[in-house]
Every structure is written in C-alpha cells, then in structure tokens.
C-alpha cells in the first residue's frame, strides 16, 4: 500500500451562489520516498485537494472521498485529536506565501520549538539545540542568532527556509510543498527547490511538489499528476510524460516550455480554466483543445490507463507523434 492514497476525492464549497466543486474526483498515490509533482493552472484545485488531506479547509468546504489514507490511517475517519498527532509530525506542509505564513508576533525560534514541543516533547534546551540544527540544515547562516529574529526581519527566501525547517522538524514521512517558490525572486527559487530536493534525498521522505512550472517538474519529480479544473487529466512517470504526453492539455503545457518552443513566441493555451459558472458540458478542456470533436463536446471522458499504467482523461489520447489516436467524432463512434 502506498504511503498516501487518495481515491475519488471531491471538495465542494458553499458559496453565495450555490455549491462549487473545486476538486472533482481526484486520485493520487504517493509511495514512500517518492517525489510526486502536481501541476496545473491556477484554480485547478491543487491546493484545495492537499488542504483537504491536511484537514485545513474552512467550514464552508465539504470533503468526500472513497479513500483518503496516509500511512494506513483513514484521514477522514480520524478524530480531530488523532489527526493532530499526525499532521505537523508525519505529514507536514509548507505554503506559497512565506511572508504571511509565519506568525509576525513570535520569534522564529519559538515557532520552530513549538512544533517540537507539541509532537516530540523533550527539554527546552534539547528543543533549542534541535532548532539550531534545523536552521543550519535549511542553510540559514548564524542559526543561533536567527532564533530570536522575528519573521519581518528576514527576507522571503529566509522565511521559506524557516517554514521548511519547521515542517521537517519532526522528520515527516511526507512533505507537501504548495508552490513553495512562487512568491520568491527567480534567483532564490532555484535555491529553495534544491534545498527541498536535497532534504528529500537526505531524509528519504516523500515529497508532493505543487507547481505551475513544467521545467521544475522535469528536473525534480519521479511522477507527475496533471490537474485541470478540479480533475486529474493525466498521470504518468516523468520521463515518459515528457517524452510523449497523452493529454492535449499536457501537450500544450509542454509546448509552452521555452526550451521546447519552435517559434519565436512561446505558444500559450487560449482561454482560461472554467470556474464556478462556466463549466462546459462534455470534456472540461474541450473549449481550449485543438483536437476537440463532437464527442468531446457531448460526453465527459473518463481517466483511463493504458497497458503501461499511463493514465489520461481524453476521448482520443495523443500518440508519440502528438496526434490523436481515436476518433473524436460522435457519429463515427455511434457507427462503430
């Protein structure tokens, strides 16, 4: 059994205009020690799905799933108390905005030792020593001195390092990094990613890396799950996905990578991710899909895996040459 197993996870928000399904039947499996990338445009439900796992969604959210297990625990059935023994310890998460994710009223040292105290106990001096060690581990110079710093006295990159130190304080088995570099300077982004991967290798923890950036996925991940409008549209190992994407959305994402561009201007995907009010009939991607046919406009496709376990949610997945394999015409399908 995988370390993390999510089957058919859905999250619905109560809004002023009725219910909104931000996550729509997502599956995800992460093995111990694996680096899993989750990619997709803004609004595709990446954060919400992970927050559902952590139990961090606001009261307006309704979470349902066939299974949501971490390390053998059924996270939906756990009491809040039992769940709190797991999150922050074996299952940790860091967020997109380092500058607002740390409490401005408390020192860095306080916030790190607080995690240690909650989950591991120990004496105050042991915790302090461990906090210094952690700050050193995440590459913060003069860690002893930084313990008494407040978050506003540190840069965004430094704060993200502190967040990472806090998250790995109790040696988690899985770390979820939700776009950990999006809010940072480009030069700092690479450093933070390197740090995360370095820590992942050193500690053997699994890492779920949420990102917009296909280039990051190529460099870091073992496997990748591509999300679109609350659904998984493609799931594959990184090497085969990059060699030959099967879903037109992934295909378009890859074409938008600078090193793969064949023209002077980077190709972009026209249109935007459908929101609460403009969810189309049929395949959710069809209004933006270059290959859409009648079938795509009429019937939602299912996520189907091929013989190699490569899964795509498409009526006619692309072949290695980037051409549709099956007919997307409703009439033809009816005839056959």
């Amino acid at each position, binding site marked *: 059994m995988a370390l993390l197993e999510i089957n058919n996870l859905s999250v619905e928000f109560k809004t002023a205009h009725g219910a909104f399904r931000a996550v729509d039947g997502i599956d995800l499996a992460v093995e111990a020690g694996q680096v899993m990338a989750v990619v997709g445009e803004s609004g595709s439900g990446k954060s919400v799905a992970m927050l559902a796992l952590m139990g*961090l969604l606001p009261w307006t959210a309704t979470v349902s799933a066939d299974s949501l297990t971490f390390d053998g625990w059924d996270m939906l059935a756990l009491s809040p108390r039992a769940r*709190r023994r797991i999150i922050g310890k074996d299952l940790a998460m860091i967020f997109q905005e380092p500058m607002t994710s740390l409490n401005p009223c408390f020192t860095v040292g306080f916030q790190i030792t607080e995690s240690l105290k909650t989950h591991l106990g120990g004496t105050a001096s042991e915790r302090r020593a461990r906090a210094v060690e952690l700050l050193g581990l995440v590459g913060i110079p003069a860690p002893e001195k930084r313990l008494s710093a407040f978050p*506003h006295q540190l840069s965004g990159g430094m704060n993200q390092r502190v967040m990472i130190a806090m998250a790995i304080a109790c040696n988690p088995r899985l770390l979820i990094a939700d776009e950990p570099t999006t809010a940072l300077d480009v030069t700092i982004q690479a450093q933070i990613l390197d740090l995360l991967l370095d820590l992942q290798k050193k500690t053997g923890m699994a890492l779920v890396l949420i990102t917009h950036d296909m280039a990051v996925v190529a460099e870091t991940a073992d496997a990748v799950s591509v999300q679109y409008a609350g659904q998984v549209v493609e799931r594959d190992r990184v090497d085969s996905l990059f060699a030959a994407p099967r879903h037109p959305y992934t295909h378009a994402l890859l074409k938008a990578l600078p090193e793969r561009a064949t023209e002077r201007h980077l190709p972009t995907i026209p249109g935007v991710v459908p929101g609460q009010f403009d969810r189309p009939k049929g395949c959710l991607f069809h209004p933006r899909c270059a290959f859409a046919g009648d079938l795509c406009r009429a019937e939602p496709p299912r996520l189907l895996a091929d013989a190699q376990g490569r899964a795509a949610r498409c009526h006619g997945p692309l072949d290695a040459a980037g051409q549709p394999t099956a007919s997307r015409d409703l009439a033809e399908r009816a005839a056959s």
Partner: protein
Amino acid sequence: MLSFLLRRVLLLIPTFLGVSVVAFGFIRVLPGDPIELLAGERSISPERHAELMARYGFDLPLWDQYLKFLTNLASGDLGTSFVTRRPVLDEFLTLFPATLELGLCAIVFAVAVGLPAGVLAGVKRRSWFDQTLMTVSLTGYSMPIFWLGLLAIMVFSGWLGLTPVSGRISVMYYFDNVTGFMLIDSLLSGQEGAFRSAAAHLILPTVVLGTIPMAVIARQTRSAMLEVLGEDYVRTARAKGLPPARVIGLHALRNALIPVVTTIGLQVGVLLAGAILTETIFSWPGIGKWMVDSISRRDYSVVQGGLLLIAAIVMLVNLTVDLLYGLINPRVRRR
C-alpha cells in the same frame, strides 16, 4: 526608542495648549454670572458685584484672563475654587481616587467580559452566541448612560433590593482614608462587613459605566479575531497539529490584540466622559460629579482646572497605550 518617546511627549504640547483653550472657554460661553450664583438668593449690590468681579479677575479682558491662567499653570497653580476656597488641585486629588476606583473596576469589567465574549463570537461566527452578543452589544452601545443607570437602579435596587442606590459605602462604616480606594481602605479598617458594603456599592456603577467600553471591546475583538483567523499563519499553526485552544488563544489572539489594545486605550476617554453621568446618577463622590456640580455653580477655576487635568490624564493614558502597542507588536518595536 528614547527619541520616539521624546517626540511623542513633544507632540503633546500643542494638544495640551488646545485643550487649555477649550477648558478655559467652555465655562465662559455658558450663560450665567458666577458672582450672582455665588450670592444665591440674596441679591447683591452693583458695587459689591464689581468688587468681587475685580477680586477674581473676571473684569479683565478674556485674553488677559487666559494668559494669567496659563502663567499660573506654568508655575503649577491651577487656581482656587471660589466656592470652597480650596486649591483646585487639592480638591482634585481628594476626589480622584473615587473616580479611579470606579474607572478601573469598569475597565476591568469591560475587558474581562468583552474580550472573551468577542473571541468566542469570532470563533463561533454566526452561532446563536455570536448573534446574541452582537445584538446585546449594539443595544448596550446605543443605550444612553443615564437611562441605563436609572433602569439598573429601578430593577436591582428598587424591585430586587439587591444593591445600594448611591454613595461609595454604607454610612454605618467610618474609617480613615488611607489609599482613597474604598475597597482597600475598607479591608484595612478591619471592620466587619465594610468591604462587602463597598463592593456592593461598586457593582451597579461599574456595570453602568463599563457597558459601552465592553460593547466596543467585544465588537472590536470579534472583528479582529475574524480577520486574523483567515490569516496564513493561523493555517500554519493548524498545520503544525497544535490544539485549537493554542491556535486561537495564542497564535490568533496575540495578533488580534494589537488593534484591541488601541481600542481599550481609547475607551479611557469614553470612560471619563461616562463617569460624569454615572457619578451623578449614583451620587459617587468623584471628579465627574465634582465637575457637574462646579459647572452648575459656575465655579470657573474648578471647571477649567478640572477639565485640563482630566484631559491630561487621557493624553497620558493614550501615550502609555502607544508605548504598550510597541511591546505587543514586534513590527513597531525596532524602528
């Protein structure tokens, strides 16, 4: 930090001057002649009237009177009541402990009830508790103090006979004024029942005076809590697996307190204004009642001196709150 303090203190000077103009002017724009009021029923001859006007300096042009007020002030002289003939400062110092005791009790009451209620309402947003509290606090906030005071006296003293109506302690007790605080002095006196009596006398005025600050603090705490609970760092605290009591009581509350402390500081002015009415209703011998009595007697020096002292207290408290603000908000501290 020192230069910050110095700048704040220097900034007080113009404010203080402005207040002195208002204090000086306020009593003089009221109709009524102090000498005639002093004479009371007996009419006074025009010569005697002119003589008294000259004695107290009321015949001088206003500008000269004001300058004299200021120069006396500079030498620490706030003037003398021409009704009791005691120095204004002495009277103030005699009466102030009564107001301070009432004010402290009221603010403690307001914070002790308003803060937890606001936190709970923020956490349990839209629950029956939240909605009840918001309705009650709005009512409390909009209810005129004298009306609330009379209502309280009617219900608790009249119908239920639970609390005394006026004064600081039952006339049965008499003891020396050591600290000026009746609660402490009654304990020091060792007389049986004295403390109970003092406490019983405090209850209604405390509640009446504390109601508006309590309502304001509860609402401010609630909205600060609501804002803070949506912040990323609260999510981080939850993600660490901390128990809800710690997430709310430490991580959220500590941040929510920052605006609330400012609000509490501002309530001191509200409290002193409210004390004037509350003390009058409950015959509480403090500076509020003193001011009202002196205004109706047109005791010019008492009113202008007293107002100035009250304003000085408010300014001092606000300065303290600003410094306190730096203590609880690390982002201001190291500037």
